[in-house]
């Protein structure tokens, strides 16, 4: 276990836990004295068999696929494809040999609840041992090296990550991301179950009701006991490395999709594996199963055993369900409809003598009889109570998490494990996976496909995550949902959402933006931006995700489509609660929202989010100037932006030591400079932006007593020396120019124009007496006829020099000069 300093609490806690744990061991050993229930566990059957929704024929049919009966007893029906078992191409690298031997010899004892039949049941003990040895010898040849996990700047992959898992982190992941929707939670785990009180009360309520009352109250789906999918004793079966790799991509080993993949990152998979395998010392974690079994070709005896194992693998029908590297033909039994379950050798009849054995319970036997019978009579076992989509969801156990048409949903004792990230209270919608009633009418088929492929999560605030199901069994599910739910929709005669030709797109978007701002913004982020502490579905993708028809109906009356939703209606009794926008026309308002959500990039974030964002990142010079060094279009890569409380602002180019831009109003948003990896240039937010780079183009000093002197030296290259702040926080930019220090101080005038004071100071007392300082203005600035020290251009800029100066203008430029003397001070103003 890895921990930080304060993580050492575990050590303290362990002593206490040890005491309780001791009690638990006793308790569980008492319980295990009772005959263990070893019937094969099929989640959908266990939960729903004998209910109204899953009559015996359908329940039996579910066993036919989930126990993979139809892998041997072929059926012509499309919906009876067998689940089949794990891919064994790398089983030698994944599973411990001793476990394999024990499992093959007695699968239902070693892994109670397994859906694999005991195919060696008919053999005598000795013979069985030999067959197991040979099959295992063959399986040991099924090895593959573990894939190298590509590490990048975006994907941290510690060296030998599988030995570094932290079991406490793994325990938390196991109980929060969704594993315990199907698998047994740890009774010791209590962290984060803040909702347990609520669920306890629900459990108590249900306990006190009769089954009729439960049905009447619509609580059936909550009242069903939900047993756990067993996974046997994992530390006998896996190594740390192989379980970690399995958890990173479960579908690679189990392509049926019944164990979906959370696609855990390397470190997360190692954490969960460390939890599931117990907190073992590093020496044990480092033990790996052989990646490549080296088989000496000379060892004829071993070769013969492997060969025999391969034959047994075929002979006992293993290849019907399991892929190995070699192509092995399946060994088929009688077709499903040919089965005679009254025959002596039927596995339903006298299992003890049969060569293939399942420890079926009576209700499983009865269901199978009815299921096979209805197949024989070509009856559709499902038509009355289950849709095609329901059927696929039963097989994949989607109902462990999702409710659909009052079937399934998270079991009552499991709900408490799932929380809202940050424990914000937004009700069950913030804790549990969404119900899937109407989902085909709601979500676009492509979106459902992407969700099943583990992409496009829109609920990052749930600790529980949607795993990847990508498999044959769910390939048709999106289309089934689409066709089934489309039907339900049209029965309710939906209003077809249409565009509103009387408004322009821009008008609609703008109205939608306002509507969003008055309502939706309170609960929904948009493009990852939101009001503070708002948690909800980000609506930026809504027009890509949902059908317009559904959107219209849902907005109009959410509760009609989603029971117990916290989403309020903004149109009570079909009347808009906002009469100011689009004259309160309901249809137009909904169309406007849709138009806006599809065009947020153009229409902009809602005003309230803009304001909230400003409070975080916009710079407001309040009582002192605010300075930000950044990149800017005008002032380049050495920009220094200065914002004054008077709302007059400037950008100074410290590379060329020149004023580059001035503006008024709002100053800058600093998010890009502070926190954006790609360092975008900062953009002035205010108005009256004026680029000065052509206006005041340069300064220079001219050394030499006489302007006619041929020995004059002109120095125009300034070296920036930085800036100093006075007691008011106003910066003075300093530079060196030909042995002089030039200081430039800017400040707003009372009229909200900009004043600049330039001081030129000799470094040595004697310098400057015979030297001149000059300013070069761009040619666009023309001297005024009344005042020779006032220049204007067509952009509306006027530069006014105070005091005296010598000036001369030409086509190319305007030059003004001053004798420096002991110290020169020049004042000028920018009016714009």
């Amino acid at each position, binding site marked *: *276990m*890895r*921990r*930080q*300093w*304060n*993580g*050492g*609490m575990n*050590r*303290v806690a362990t002593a206490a836990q040890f005491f309780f744990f001791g009690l638990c061991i006793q308790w569980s050993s008492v319980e295990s004295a009772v005959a263990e229930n070893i019937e094969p566990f099929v989640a959908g059957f266990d939960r729903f068999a004998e209910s109204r929704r899953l009559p015996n024929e359908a329940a039996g049919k579910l066993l036919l696929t989930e126990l993979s009966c139809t892998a041997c007893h072929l059926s012509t029906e499309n919906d009876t494809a067998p689940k089949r078992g794990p891919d064994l191409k790398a089983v030698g690298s994944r599973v411990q040999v001793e476990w394999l031997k024990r499992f093959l010899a007695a699968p239902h004892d070693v892994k109670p609840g397994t859906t694999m039949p005991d195919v060696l049941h008919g053999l005598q003990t000795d013979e069985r041992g030999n067959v197991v040895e040979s099959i295992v010898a063959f399986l040991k040849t099924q090895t593959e090296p573990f894939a190298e996990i590509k*590490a*990048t*700047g*975006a*994907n*941290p*992959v*510690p*060296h030998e990550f599988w030995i*570094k898992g932290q079991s406490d982190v793994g325990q938390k992941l196991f109980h929060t991301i969704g594993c315990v929707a199907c698998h047994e939670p740890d009774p010791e785990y209590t962290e984060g179950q803040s909702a347990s009180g609520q669920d306890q009360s629900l459990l108590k309520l249900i306990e006190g009701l009769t089954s009729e009352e439960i049905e009447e109250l619509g609580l059936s789906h909550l009242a069903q006991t939900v047993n756990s999918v067993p996974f046997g004793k994992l530390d006998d079966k896996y190594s740390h490395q192989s379980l970690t790799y399995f958890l990173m991509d479960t579908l690679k080993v189990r392509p049926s999709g019944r164990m979906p993949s959370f696609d855990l990152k390397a*470190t997360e998979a190692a954490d969960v594996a460390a939890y599931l395998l117990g907190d073992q*010392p*590093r*020496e044990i974690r*480092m033990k790996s199963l052989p990646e490549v079994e080296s088989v000496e070709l000379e060892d004829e005896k071993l070769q013969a055993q492997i060969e025999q194992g391969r034959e047994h693998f075929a002979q006992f029908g293993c290849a019907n369900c399991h892929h190995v590297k070699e192509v092995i033909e399946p060994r088929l039994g009688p077709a499903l409809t040919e089965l005679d379950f009254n025959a002596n050798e039927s596995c339903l009849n006298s299992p003890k003598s049969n060569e293939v054995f399942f420890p079926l319970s009576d209700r499983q036997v009865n269901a199978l009889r009815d299921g096979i019978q209805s197949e024989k009579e070509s009856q559709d076992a499902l038509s009355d109570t289950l849709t095609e989509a329901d059927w696929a969801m039963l097989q994949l156990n989607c109902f462990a998490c999702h409710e659909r048409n009052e079937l399934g949903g998270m079991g009552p004792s499991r709900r408490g494990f799932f929380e809202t990230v940050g424990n914000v209270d937004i009700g069950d919608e913030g804790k549990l996976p969404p119900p899937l009633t109407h989902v085909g009418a709601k979500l676009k088929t492509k979106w459902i496909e992407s969700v099943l492929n583990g992409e496009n999560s829109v609920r990052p605030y749930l600790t529980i995550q949607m795993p990847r199901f990508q498999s044959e069994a769910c390939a048709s599910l999106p289309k089934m949902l689409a066709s089934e739910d489309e039907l339900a929709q049209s029965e309710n005669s939906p209003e077809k959402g249409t565009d509103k030709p009387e408004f322009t797109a821009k008008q609609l978007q703008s109205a939608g933006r306002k509507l969003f701002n008055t309502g939706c913004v309170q609960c929904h982020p948009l*493009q*990852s*931006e939101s009001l*503070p*502490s708002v948690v909800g579905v980000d609506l930026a993708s809504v027009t890509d995700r949902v059908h317009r028809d559904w959107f219209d109906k849902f907005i109009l009356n959410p509760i009609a489509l989603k029971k117990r939703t916290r989403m309020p209606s903004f149109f009570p009794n079909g009347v808009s609660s906002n009469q100011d926008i689009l004259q309160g026309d309901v249809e137009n308002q909904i169309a406007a929202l849709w138009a806006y959500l599809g065009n947020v990039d153009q229409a902009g974030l809602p005003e309230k989010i803009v304001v909230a964002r400003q409070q*975080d990142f916009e710079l407001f010079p309040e009582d002192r100037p*605010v*300075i*930000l*060094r950044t*990149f800017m279009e005008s002032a*380049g*890569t*050495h920009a*220094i932006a200065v914002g004054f409380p008077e709302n007059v602002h400037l950008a100074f180019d*410290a*590379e060329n030591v020149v004023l580059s831009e001035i503006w008024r109003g709002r100053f800058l948003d600093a998010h890009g*400079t*502070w*926190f*954006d*990896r*790609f*360092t975008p*240039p900062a953009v002035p937010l205010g108005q009256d932006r004026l680029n000065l780079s052509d206006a005041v183009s340069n300064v220079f000093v001219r050394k030499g007593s006489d302007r006619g002197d041929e020995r004059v030296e002109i120095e125009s290259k300034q*070296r*920036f*020396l*930085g*800036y*100093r*702040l*006075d*007691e008011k926080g106003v910066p003075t930019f300093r530079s060196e120019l030909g042995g002089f220090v030039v200081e430039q101080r800017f400040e707003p005038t009372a009229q909200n124009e900009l004043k600049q004071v330039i001081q030129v100071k000799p470094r040595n007392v004697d310098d400057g007496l015979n030297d001149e300082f000059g300013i070069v203005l761009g040619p666009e600035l023309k001297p005024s006829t009344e005042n020779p020290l006032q220049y204007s251009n067509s952009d509306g800029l006027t530069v006014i020099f105070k005091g005296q100066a010598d000036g001369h203008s030409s086509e190319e430029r305007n030059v003004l000069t001053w004798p420096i003397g002991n110290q020169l001070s020049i004042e000028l103003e920018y009016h714009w």
Partner: protein
Amino acid sequence: MFLWRVLLVVIVLAGLFEKSVIAEDVDDYYPIVSIFTPESRTESRSKNWKPAPDGLPLEVSGMTQLPDGRLAVAIRKGEIWILDGVSDVPPDNVTYHKFASGLHEPLGLLWHDDSFYTVQRSELTRVRDRDGDGIADDYETAATGWGLTGHYHEYAYGPELDGQGNIWLTLNIGLGLKGDQLSRTIQDPTLGYRQARWRGWGMQVDLDNRKLIPICAGMRSPSGIGSNADGDMFYTDQQGNWVATNSLHHMRKGAFFHHPEALASMSEPDSPIHGIESVPNGVPFPTALKNFSQMVPPAVWFPYKKVGQSVTDIVLDSSGGKFGPFSGQLFVGEFTLASIHRVFLEKVDGEYQGACFPFRDGMASAVLRLQQASDGSLFAGLSNRGWSSLGTASYGLQRVMWSGRVPFEIQEMSALNDGFRLTFTKEVDPETAADVSSYAMNSYTYLYQASYGSEEIQNRELTITSADVSEDRLSVKLTVKGMRELFVHELTARGVRSADGAPLLHPDAYYTLNRIPKAITRDQ
């Protein structure tokens, strides 16, 4: 809060005095104290990255200890903060004082000559408080003049002082420059490479004359600078194009390391590197060195994943033993895997080479900066924005302490003419330590190439023919067949036990064998 403190005391005591448990966890030796590590609010690569609400975005990008013991930190947002109380355990009463602001992503901080010095994107700045009100009011440009196209990857790091009092900074290469950025580049006429001026260079600064002095070139992303016990200056580089894996280099005049786009500035006045007419590409690194006389090999390669994915700051353990048995060695920060590595250096034929070892993982976020406090503990400045890292936080400050217990580690791995000498931190069990099967060694090198990183190539198992335990049982001489110059020699010593039966906390070591020492004769 009170309860927490009581618990913490209990834990501290448990950590220090618990001897009965077989310790094999780095927490028992080098526990971490979290000073400030808020939970991440947004994904570290998100365009909309935001700091934790209402908190100081303490993305530590520079650290320096003030003469009075307070810790000053620069943060990426552009501020300098002075922190008091950071050395308390638990750090419950830390105070934060903002000293300076408005800087452009400062990536280093140095207290020197009664001032702060920090390298911003565009300049080395001296930051002072002239009127004594506790807030900076003088942001003086101490040196500037390197090019800056505006590309985000043009980070600038430093400054750091070497043993001779020289002040150093390093400059990243820009990546994939285009459009307006190209107008701010220069181009080498012979090789054709284009970069902004001095990009990919290590510079010294003449503070008196505000002058940059280009020293060495060929850096890709030199985010860590630091000197060793002898005062020589090193930098770390990060895997990428032309850089096979993370590396540690000795900076000195005229050295070229690997990234050739830095040669865009080769013909600039003051360049100490001249006359490179062609650059090999796609050849094994030892071959490239033969054909490229100006290029010098790194002192240490950090094999990818095995010792990190992205190395950062360098700090010398100058505590004289207050931080455990590694005094005089270097610690190197690790970004992606949120950890710290350790480096042992030695000189062979006048050139540095040595070994790296994993040291401490499990930090709360990417380790960007390291600073040793006067009590020997290591402050780790964290920030993972823009990339990704392990850990629960996106930024913050932690402190790695030494519990006082000595871990069983390979303290030093030094090269011999016919093998390596391992020095251990504790006495070894002579039986396992003398058993050659307790060890395994292989060696490999990398491709020198324009494409990103390199696999380990020409990998070969080496035979260890003997393992001789010294009389004091603190060192083992391994005699190794088939050592190759310029190859990384990877050692695992998983079978070795300490005298009290414990395995090595980190059994793996990676020695960059640029030169095989000459055989030592009796006369010498």
